[in-house]
């Protein structure tokens, strides 16, 4: 009956070994079909490591920017002049205030990633919890939660974020509390919550009807444990791919908000660099091109990583 099952060490070993070279050393205790399927699923691929490498370099540069970069983000260069073309001194040229675009691109990573990632995280936690509760308990709780979320969903995303941001700042675009990045994060995460809650609820609805949940109920498992241990692991992949998409969307939205004159204006972000560079796109395309390139590569890397990680942890549903 167990002729098709492999040595348990095989699974553990392949789960930890990531380089293809080491796979040859794994003891061969399986039939070829089973082994191939297992290896295919456990390979992350070169692209994954390139994407991780890009994010690592970017993050390191952003965090250590003050130490390793020769210029500051607000430093002006009279000698180079405004809108100077890329050169050996200024790799990505200068902007309309004679500031170095490369330095600003690197420093912009801080706010852009911080806002994108933390707003998505907050949205994941809050939206995930709401969606889980709505999908699991049904009835009155579900109608109350989905009703409230539908109201939020009815407002266009950008308008909602703009309204929240305006509400949380005063006339001079100063935050009513905390600092402006926190305000932007709060506004964007409130705007993200309904979508994530919806996706979560839809998936929870499907999985809470499965027989393993019924089996768990017959054991007398408490609802919280059923939600966390039985349903959540099945819902997380869908939530994660959605959340990674939203990191990208939020980085763009943050830029749009800057362009509209709210949110973070004093420090560079990819969004506001693109927004302010747009006026001069004919004379100095590098002002728009390079922040866009950074944003594009980062979003591509995030999505690619998300996709590979999802594949890596995916389990096949069918058995027979």
């Amino acid at each position, binding site marked *: *009956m*167990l002729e098709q*099952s*492999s*040595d*348990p060490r095989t*699974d*553990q070993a392949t789960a930890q070994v990531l380089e293809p070279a080491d796979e040859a050393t794994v003891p061969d205790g399986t039939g070829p079909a089973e082994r191939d399927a297992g290896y295919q699923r456990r390979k992350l691929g070169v692209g994954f490591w390139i994407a991780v490498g890009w994010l690592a370099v970017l993050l390191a540069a952003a965090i250590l920017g003050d130490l390793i970069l020769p210029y500051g983000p607000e430093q002006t260069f009279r000698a180079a002049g405004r809108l100077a073309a890329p050169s050996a001194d200024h790799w990505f040229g200068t902007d309309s205030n004679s500031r170095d675009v490369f330095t600003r691109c690197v420093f912009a990573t801080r706010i852009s990633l911080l806002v994108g990632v933390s707003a998505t995280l907050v949205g994941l936690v809050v939206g995930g919890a709401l969606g889980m509760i709505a999908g699991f308990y049904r009835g*009155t*709780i579900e109608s109350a939660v989905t009703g409230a979320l539908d109201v939020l969903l009815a407002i266009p995303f950008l308008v909602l974020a703009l309204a929240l941001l305006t509400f949380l700042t005063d006339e001079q675009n100063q935050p009513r509390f905390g600092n402006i990045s926190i305000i932007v994060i709060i506004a964007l995460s409130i705007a993200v919550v309904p979508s994530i809650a919806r996706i979560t609820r839809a998936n929870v609805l499907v999985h809470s009807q*499965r*027989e*393993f949940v*019924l*089996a*768990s*109920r*017959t*054991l*007398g*498992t*408490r609802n919280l*444990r059923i939600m966390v*241990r*039985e349903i959540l*692991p*099945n819902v997380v992949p869908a939530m994660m791919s959605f959340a990674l998409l939203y990191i990208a969307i939020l980085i763009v939205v943050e830029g749009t908000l800057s362009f509209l004159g709210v949110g973070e204006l004093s420090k560079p972000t990819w969004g506001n660099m693109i927004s302010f560079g747009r006026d001069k796109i004919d004379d100095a395309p590098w002002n728009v091109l390079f922040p866009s390139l950074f944003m594009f590569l980062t979003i591509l890397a995030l999505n690619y990583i998300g996709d590979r990680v999802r594949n890596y942890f995916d*389990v*096949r*549903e*069918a*058995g*027979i």
Partner: protein
Amino acid sequence: MAGSGTAHLGGPDDAVLRVTDLTVEFPVGNTGLKVHAVSGISFDIRKGETMGLVGESGCGKSTTGRALMQVPRPTSGRVVLEGEDLAAYDRESIRAVRARLQMIFQDPISSLNPRRTIAEIVREPLVVQWLESVPRSPVARLWHSLVRWMLPLWRTAWRFGRFALGALLAAAVIWIVGEAVDVSALRGVGVAVGIVAGIAAAPLALFIGVTAAAWLVLVLLMGPFALARWLRLRAGRAAFLAEADEKVRRALSTVGLDPDVAMPKRRHEFSGGQCQRICIARALVLEPKLLICDEPVSALDVSVQAQILNLLEDMKAEYGLTLVFISHDLAVVKNVSDRVAVMYLGKMCEVAPPDLIYSEPAHPYTAALLSAIPAPDPTINQRGIATISGEVPSPVFPPSGCRFRTRCPRATGHCEANEPLMREVRTGHYVACHFPLVGEPAPGATRGEDELLVLS
């Protein structure tokens, strides 16, 4: 047929499980109608016995099995397990009993979580029992009861309060319009409506505010208590895991799986039969008294069915189990059961040992079921054999009297007016029918003069 009554129950003491007048009803949307899934069935199971529960799809077999497990709770009736009435217990008391009552399901693959390892899945019953062994803090218990109280109260409050809130909203709109067109009269109306609505909404706001505040305080208090409980659990965790690991290994090897191979894997790496073995291991790890098998072999291919049935027989002997075996496969039930109960549309038709039921069915429905078994003989014309016609009536509007009368070849006006009760037609053979195929008609059951006596 298809009646009530308790004549077939044994003496009061010899039953592991005794079900009396078990009723399960589900609401149909908001129509006020009910699906009568199970309507007052009774049976008992002696220690070490296997009770087969058969019937066609939708007759309430599986609902009965789940009602025995109290998921969902039955609408009424008694489910007495070793002298304890589960149906009367509250949710917390049932948790303690669950270890003695386990269930395996029809679809072995779907009843294993695809993302958890087999070790975790088989250990889960032990973990749940272990978690229950450390009592939760009084704060957490208070919070749970508050939530259970609060929801219906909020619903009621909302039913009355929403009009006040609506009026408040209308007042705001009137006021804003008045402000926009600058008509002071309109503004005045808005303010007046707002004040009235505000007074009307105040009790609701106060009520929701107070309960929400109590809820919040409890939630905040729960944190430290939960931490203390977690630390207690943490301290005993290593010992528990070692002990649980031993039990999991033993359960897996008794069902014929190699623990070392199976434990780190997930369900997609197993076949259907292996998955059912894992489900059986999960059910047995707590060493229950009663095992409810809800169509355990229906989803498996025939060669594996025999393996699983033999395994269940072995487990029954090894663990001293009592089985409830729910199936629509008459041949399988005949092989495994000590007694067979036939169900139709939420009612019990006939209870007897399989030898009696399969050789001489007393109930017309049982006879029809048996004649529907395909005969492995090409010379027999299956279509020529008389079976019942028509559809199963809707369980939302079940027929009066005997529920089978709409399809029964022997039904008379008497069956329409009176519900048949369980009675013994010969030793050990109980049937709920006015005009059974075996034995005498029920006392008082007569056919009208104008009714044809059709005897096959």
